[in-house]
């Protein structure tokens, strides 16, 4: 039965619609895409053909963003897609955050207003092009009617409709009201990609000019009349509750207004963050820590290792895996990945004003409608009484796919009649995250004639989707956790993937930039390097021999070999490592060059990535996302690990949860391949590449086959062997 799952998935691949497993999976949720419903905002005096486009009489073109901007450049790319088909004047384009509304702005993949899974462009590619083209057609119809000519004899460009024969022109502003009266065409034509003038250009980002002068507003920058600021202390042990609170000293701190005791957290509201923070420090809180107070990372790993011995649900099975593993040269390895915190630069925050009959929220979230519905529950109000004002996100990385911070803020704001901005300290942010789960990935393979004959890959770890989107968890398979395991790019004749759900004791887990493919690409690419060595082959040649049916991957791999200087001599203890990845429907090959000194300290010398993401809507954004994603992934490989002791997270801030810095950053070259294929996902892809490519570079330089992250430098000192 599972073979059928994988068959349909592979038919998608071979059909040229290569998508991440997650995208290919059809979510059993209501579809709600771009229906021509009249929008909720005031469209008086404007051309408002659908939920995304507003053009007023001056030609000012406001595009409403169904996806949120957290740095990935989506506001600019979505605008380019809309403006391309609209033939808008790019210089007149402005963007606006969308309000919560699944019906109007629900992500086509999820049926929910969600920004995640690197799918903004993938999911919206056709719907937005149609939305733009429809609007353009209405503008053209309006002009044609005014001139009394056939619409087909008119053309549009840069915000103007022209009648070529007569040389007449009308701006979109002049046509706005007339266009509003036009009937939208039923089946509008979209452009041939060769006619694109905006898509494919490295357009300047629309959100950055206000980010160089302090004007850009993030959720944490919300300021409202009468607003106070709250600092929060969540129970240090997961699942623990508040016991006794002695606020006698806290209420004496100048500027402290109120101490709010929730079920599992205590907040101090003050005139400013400093008063709130000092008030919080002055509180004496006794926690009922509950049953999780004795849990440590070791317990969690013991559990996971035990669970990973079980047979899992089969996510893919081609050929006869038992037979294949019974012959040939056998290889077995387990790869282990730690808990990780998101640590977006903008600490967790939410501003809420609860009134008797309404609740208004100011925040930056990746899940507008879920925030709205969860806030409604917490406020005890109907959903339509909850207003959510979204903001730019100072990084999201999956943390802001959770509504917990808004729910807590609503509970706090319910206790006062003024607006409250709840700001988490960095310590709270790190210690009360929803963590990237620990994973244990076991690969058993057999080599015959220098190629992989049998490939059995078992993933054990948390099923994030089961919690986050229960309908998507079916037949015991977390399609995120095995996404790039099932989609591994190699043609293995006997290819078997299993998944064991193992939830870590007490620690909440969630999506973390790069999601499931982070563990899959790491395990697959590490194992491929070890297998290449076993087969006595060059790692790239070895991979190529099993990519013959994957021309796009082969092409990027060939190109990265050339650009990275693969094969050219290197000094001692310097190595190159390669990674190829199928994640998010992009085809990417990366080479990291690193030096490991005699005490095991690592210097990143150079990173080269070749990216085929189909049509790159904005090639400069693609480059930027790969550059940044690589740093994000390399940071995790070098330093990232959250550990638990006595039920508490031991890390707290950047001094003990380290980040890569500019003085550790190598030269990074990203080459974006020209392609006419449909766009792939890019925001998370770079994250997948960094850790395995670095690990393989270390393997090449030292011979040490690391199988855990973060990298343990002690294993890399000169003279150490695997």
């Amino acid at each position, binding site marked *: 039965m599972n073979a059928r799952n994988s068959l349909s998935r592979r038919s998608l691949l071979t059909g040229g619609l290569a998508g991440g497993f997650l995208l290919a999976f059809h979510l059993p949720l209501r579809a709600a895409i771009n229906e021509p419903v009249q929008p909720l905002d005031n469209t008086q005096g404007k051309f408002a053909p659908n939920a995304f486009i507003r053009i007023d009489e001056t030609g000012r073109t406001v595009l409403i963003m169904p996806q949120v901007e957290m740095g990935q450049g989506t506001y600019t790319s979505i605008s380019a897609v809309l403006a391309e088909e609209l033939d808008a004047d790019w210089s007149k384009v402005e963007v606006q955050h969308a309000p919560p509304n699944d019906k109007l702005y629900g992500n086509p993949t999820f049926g929910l207003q969600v920004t995640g899974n690197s799918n903004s462009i993938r999911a919206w590619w056709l719907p937005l092009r149609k939305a733009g083209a429809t609007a353009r057609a209405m503008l053209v119809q309006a002009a044609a009617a005014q001139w009394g000519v056939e619409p087909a004899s008119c053309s549009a460009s840069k915000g103007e409709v022209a009648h070529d024969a007569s040389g007449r022109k009308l701006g979109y502003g002049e046509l706005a009201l007339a266009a509003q009266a036009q009937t939208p065409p039923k089946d509008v034509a979209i452009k041939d990609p060769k006619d694109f003038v905006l898509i494919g250009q490295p357009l300047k980002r629309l959100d950055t000019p206000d980010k160089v002068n302090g004007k850009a507003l993030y959720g944490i920058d919300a300021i409202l009349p009468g607003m106070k600021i709250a600092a929060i202390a969540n129970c240090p042990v997961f699942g623990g509750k508040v016991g006794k609170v002695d606020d006698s000293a806290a209420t004496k701190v100048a500027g402290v207004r109120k101490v709010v005791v929730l079920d599992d957290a205590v907040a101090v509201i003050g005139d400013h963050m400093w008063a709130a923070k000092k008030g919080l420090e002055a509180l004496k809180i006794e926690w009922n820590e509950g049953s999780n107070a004795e849990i440590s990372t070791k317990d969690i790993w013991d559990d996971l290792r035990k669970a990973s011995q079980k047979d899992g649900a089969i996510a893919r099975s081609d050929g006869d895996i038992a037979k294949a593993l019974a012959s040939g040269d056998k290889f077995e390895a387990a790869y282990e990945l730690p808990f990780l915190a998101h640590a977006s630069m903008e600490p967790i925050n939410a501003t809420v004003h609860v009134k008797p009959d309404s609740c208004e929220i100011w925040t930056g979230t990746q899940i507008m409608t879920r925030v709205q519905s969860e806030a409604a529950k917490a406020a005890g109000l109907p959903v339509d009484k909850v207003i959510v004002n979204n903001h730019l996100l100072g990084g999201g990385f999956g943390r802001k796919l959770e509504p917990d911070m808004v729910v807590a803020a609503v509970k706090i704001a319910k206790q006062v009649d003024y607006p409250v901005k709840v700001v988490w300290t960095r310590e709270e942010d790190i210690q009360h995250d929803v963590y990237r789960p620990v994973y244990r990935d076991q690969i058993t393979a057999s080599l015959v004639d220098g190629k992989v004959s049998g490939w059995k890959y078992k993933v054990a770890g948390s099923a994030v989707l089961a919690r986050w989107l229960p309908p998507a968890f079916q037949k015991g398979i977390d399609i995120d956790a095995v996404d790039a395991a099932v989609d591994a790019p190699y043609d293995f004749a006997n290819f078997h993937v299993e998944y064991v759900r193992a939830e870590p004791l007490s620690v909440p887990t969630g999506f973390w930039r790069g999601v499931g493919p982070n563990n899959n690409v790491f395990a697959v690419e590490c194992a491929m390097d070890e297998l290449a060595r076993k087969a006595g082959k060059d790692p790239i040649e070895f991979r190529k021999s099993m990519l013959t049916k994957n021309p796009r991957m082969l092409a990027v791999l060939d190109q990265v070999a050339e650009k990275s200087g693969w094969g050219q001599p290197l000094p001692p203890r310097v190595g190159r490592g390669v990674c190829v990845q199928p994640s998010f429907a992009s085809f990417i090959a990366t080479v990291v060059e690193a030096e490991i000194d005699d005490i*095991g*300290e690592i210097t990143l010398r150079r990173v080269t990535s070749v990216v085929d993401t189909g049509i790159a809507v904005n090639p400069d954004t693609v480059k930027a996302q790969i550059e940044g994603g690589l740093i994000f992934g390399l940071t995790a490989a070098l330093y990232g690990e959250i550990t638990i002791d006595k039920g508490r997270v*031991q*890390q707290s801030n950047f*001094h*003990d*949860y380290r980040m890569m810095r500019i003085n550790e950053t190598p030269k990074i070259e990203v080459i974006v391949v020209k392609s006419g294929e449909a766009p792939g996902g890019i925001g998370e892809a770079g994250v997948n590449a960094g850790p395995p490519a670095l690990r393989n570079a270390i393997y090449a330089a030292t011979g040490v086959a690391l199988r855990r992250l973060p990298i343990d*430098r*002690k294993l890399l000192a000169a003279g150490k062997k695997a």
Partner: protein
Amino acid sequence: MSGKMRILTSLLVIAIVAVALGVWIIRGPGPLDFAGGTKVALADYRAGKPTGVPAKLEKASLAERGEYLAKAADCMVCHTKPGEKEYSGGLAFKLPFGTLYSTNITPDKDTGIGNYSDQDFLNAVQHGKRRDGARLYPAMPYTSYTFMTDEDVLAVKAYLFSLPAVRAKAPENTLSFPFNQRWAMIVWSAVFNPDTRFAPDTSKSPEWNRGAYLVEALAHCGECHTPRNLGFALDNRKKFAGAITAGWRAFNISSDKATGLGNWSDQDLISYLSLGHAPSHGSASGPMGEAVDHSFSRFAPEDISSIVAYLRSVPPQPSPDLPATTAPVAPASHRDGVTADARGKKVFASACASCHGWSGESPVSPMATLTGTWAVNDPAATNVAQIVISGTKRHTPDGALSMPAFGNAYTDDEIAAVANYVTARFGAKGSKLTAKDVAELRGQTAE
């Protein structure tokens, strides 16, 4: 007497004399012997009242007076495990030969000192003898507390008995043989415990005598600042010359002008003791930071002045490994000055420069200025490494300033490198710490 007997007797006498001489040589002078003046019994001293509490507390209850004295004796820090209830014990002392745990001194009858009579308490504090007769290890500084008056010791007891009883049993000590033989402490105590109460010196001022009582009987400064002899007792020949305790360097606090307190102004000393910071001398960290937070900052101003007066009289002892003068301000640019340790510089640029600046003069707070501190001028870099590992926090009336503990996310190599860079750039002579040294320092600190 036969010839044989005579020879044996002579040998015995020689042996006894040798042991006595050995003991005398090892034991050396007492902590107050340097003063050399005429000592009188406390009862016969009329010039002032060197013991007890400051004047403003004279009328306070016994327990309140005991509280002041308990803080002056800094009982709480050693008898409290971080995060646990005050005075409930359990703090680990990591020694080369095992781990000792401090005891619960709350009035809990089963696990604390609830059953102690006055005499039991005096026996413990002044004589190092537990209620069950077992001997205390000298991690408990009873050889200092022995100078306290009975009245003061019992005031401390009254204070401790006024606190809530906490049920908490300290873990068993894990000392190796022969250090696990408590009876041996009978001999140690006989040799090294002066077992005498404070006797004022009539040749000195009342202020000096008060300072002597505070420093020697209560604050037990010598326990960290005086080097130890072969018997692991204080070697007062080198009184206050500085020593390594619990992995931290307690610097020279003798009156030596170059490496001691000789060149500190009174105001510097007062500020350092009461606030934990003195301009251009740095900030108290580690055990001294705790001593300031929990003890010295609670002292009455006149008591701080008395301590200063007393410290000034301690004869100079050189610290030959320290430079004669601390290094001046480093250049403002990272390019100038010492840049040899590339790894150390990298760590410094990432994690340190924001607060300490490239010159060593903090752009943020004088408390974070490195220039002029002994820590960065110590070519062993002991305290630099320790502060990097475990961080520090200074409380002042104007608020707190802290440095986070980098020890959990930075490797021993990185910590060694940054300590070497910092001592070279901001101190007189760069250290040569290795990763192994840092690992050892981590192992020595109390938890």
